[in-house]
């Protein structure tokens, strides 16, 4: 039984036209970077892994997580975290409520609160629980989004151009933070990006899409 995230001869078709194909295994704590120009179907590939592939697409192959076939599992039951270019914090919830949304169920109110405060402290945002996410800086929002996802205790991590929304300095910090956390939690990471520096920072394997054509 292979630990980690496996894309077993995965192929996505738009109608009948093949769009993107990938066959790869990502072990715990490993990063696989998928590079290629926009419009090549990188994000579509991730949506297959999260289970949110639009009905216009079809797919072949299987997705396995820690040996379990999750191809037909509902998205919310997969425990696969994803970060996008935008933080996508829910604007109607406070920072703390956003984290509570991610935090897996269970525990008393006080315990959950404590866990959230702890999470905030880990990203250097102590006491931010009652803040309106719209009042945070771009870097702070990105960190909250990361912590929200980690609190859901994912078993794998997907990054969809997750660093391109940040300025150069924050981008470095954020990359370091994300990859350190992923390694520490032994999460397999699948990253799609068009930025070679992202792939270099990940120090993992790189797959070029569109190179075949």
């Amino acid at each position: 039984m292979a630990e980690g995230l496996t894309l077993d001869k995965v192929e996505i078709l738009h109608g009948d036209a093949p769009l993107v194909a990938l066959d790869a295994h990502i072990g715990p704590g490993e990063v696989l970077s998928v590079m290629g120009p926009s419009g090549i179907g990188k994000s579509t590939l991730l949506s297959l892994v999260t289970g949110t592939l639009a009905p216009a697409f079809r797919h072949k192959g299987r997705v396995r997580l820690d040996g379990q076939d999750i191809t037909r599992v509902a998205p919310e039951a997969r425990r696969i975290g994803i970060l996008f270019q935008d933080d996508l914090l829910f604007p109607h919830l406070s920072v703390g409520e956003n984290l509570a949304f991610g935090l897996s169920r269970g525990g008393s109110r006080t315990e959950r609160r404590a866990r959230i405060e702890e999470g905030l402290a880990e990203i250097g945002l102590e006491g931010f629980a009652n803040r309106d996410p719209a009042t945070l800086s771009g870097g702070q929002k990105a960190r909250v989004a990361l912590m929200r996802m980690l609190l859901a205790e994912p078993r794998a991590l997907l990054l969809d151009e997750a660093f391109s929304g940040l300025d150069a300095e924050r981008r470095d910090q954020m990359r370091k933070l994300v990859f350190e956390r992923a390694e520490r939690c032994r999460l397999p990471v699948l990253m799609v990006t068009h930025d070679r520096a992202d792939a270099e920072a990940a120090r993992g394997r790189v797959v070029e899409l569109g190179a075949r054509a």
Partner: protein
Amino acid sequence: MRGGTPSEAGLFAAAPALTMLAMLGPVAAGLAGTLLPAFGYLPAAGISGFSLAPFVDLFDWPGLGQAMRLSVTTGLFATALALAGVTLLFAGWSGTRAFRALERLLSPLLSVPHAAMAFGLAFLIAPSGWIARGLSPWATGWERPPDILIVQDSLGITMTLGLVAKEMPFLLLMGLAAMGQSDAARRMRVVQAAGYGRVTGWLKAVFPSIYAQIRLPVYVVLAYSMSVVDVALILGPSTPSPLSVQIVRWMSDPDLSMRLVASAGALLQLGLVIGALALWRAGEALVAVLGRRWVMRGGRGRAADRLFRPLGVFAGSFSAAVILGGLACLAVWSFAGFWGFPDALPQGFTAQNWMRHGPSAWEATGITALVALIATGIALLLSVGCLEAEYRRGRAISPTGLWLVYLPLLVPQIAFLPGLQTLLLILGYGAGTGPVIIGHLVFVLPYVFLSLGDTWRAWDPRAGIVARALGASPLGVLLRVRLPMLTRPLLTAAAVGIAVSVGQYLPTLLIGGGRVSTLTTEAVALASGGDRRAIGVFGVAQTLAVMVPFAGALLIPAVLWRNRRGMHG
């Protein structure tokens, strides 16, 4: 998007079918209920032999030719003028500060009930109206109201102008939504760089794509203007009346056999509307051919701006002035003490009119609110269900689906509501609030669905993906993320629904069998009496009934999300 429990998925999958049933069921049933009596089949009145007698009787009515002519001219002129006005406003001014100002002024006027607008206009331009008072006696020399027929003129000019004023805000709003999707600003930059005048350039480069998107709303205006009853009762001629008014009269005749003539008339009205729509469609084709030739000639038309830009502002101001001036006039009358001609203002203001008519207006407000809130609540549930089903299937509504949504607005009310009433009679269901709510739903649903649709679809689907990845079920995403994020458009859609319901005259009158008294039916019933103070009270109450929900739609999110800057974008 996969997932969710099967029963929940089934519920959302059923929403489009339920919605279609709620919108089109009564229309289809009503048309059937019109068709049968029109050919002499009305068992409830003991008449069951099929014949053409109802049509013979209809054509024997001496006013028929005039009534038909009125329907056609009113509809075509009102639609053409309203469209021309809005087009000139867009062409000459879109993107300017003046345009923004007019847009802000006109948008809320969309919701003003037709009856209130009509009364307001009547109070403005009647021989004893505000305008005549303002000009008398110093300019006109009138010491008494002149004996001329302005308001219910036999050509229907006043009625047409009233409809133009009232439909312009509607077309403007529809046009604005279309503008957002047509890249108009950049097209205009290209066009002006090529040396085109503003109006000419807009007409040649932007208008075709805007018109393609507002075509259905334009048809709605045409069908509505041809067959409206409440506006016709207040502003239209009475000898003879427009066809729609005469049909209502036949319907309320104690002699049940008159319903046969009414049904025949309703079918004729439907035929007239279909014919006018066909004519309009042909006109579109003609304009397209001429427009292509016009474009080919390459004229820059810069001089035309000097004429057409002021015309556009005039059209917009006309609409605003008629509606706002009328509302002001209603408000003044509702507080007026003695007000002799030609005084511009009453000698004194008093609360007495409100004391006298307030209680009955308040009672009507209760029933109005009950009907509006239930109909709007159901419409919101069904619309959200449909849009969620759309989202889960990953497929937006098809053009055919959109036509079906517009269908209840395109079939004239007067063509199927009499049939619905007859059908209820045959089935032995009494008239009452329940059937009225179902009748209102037919018209509330399309507007709520259309009002909510664009913002619903514009919601960033990645928020849903993130929420699912964080462990939320599809229903959880809907309830905990999407609906809260869309509070504002949901409340706006609710306000639109309430406004539509409050303004309904014919469904309330016919389906309610005259026994369900809303602000609108009560106000229109006052028309023949001519008690301006009572009309003022009811007109103001009617306007408040639509304005309060809109104010709520603005204030509630502002208070609810006062600490959430991201919710005010």
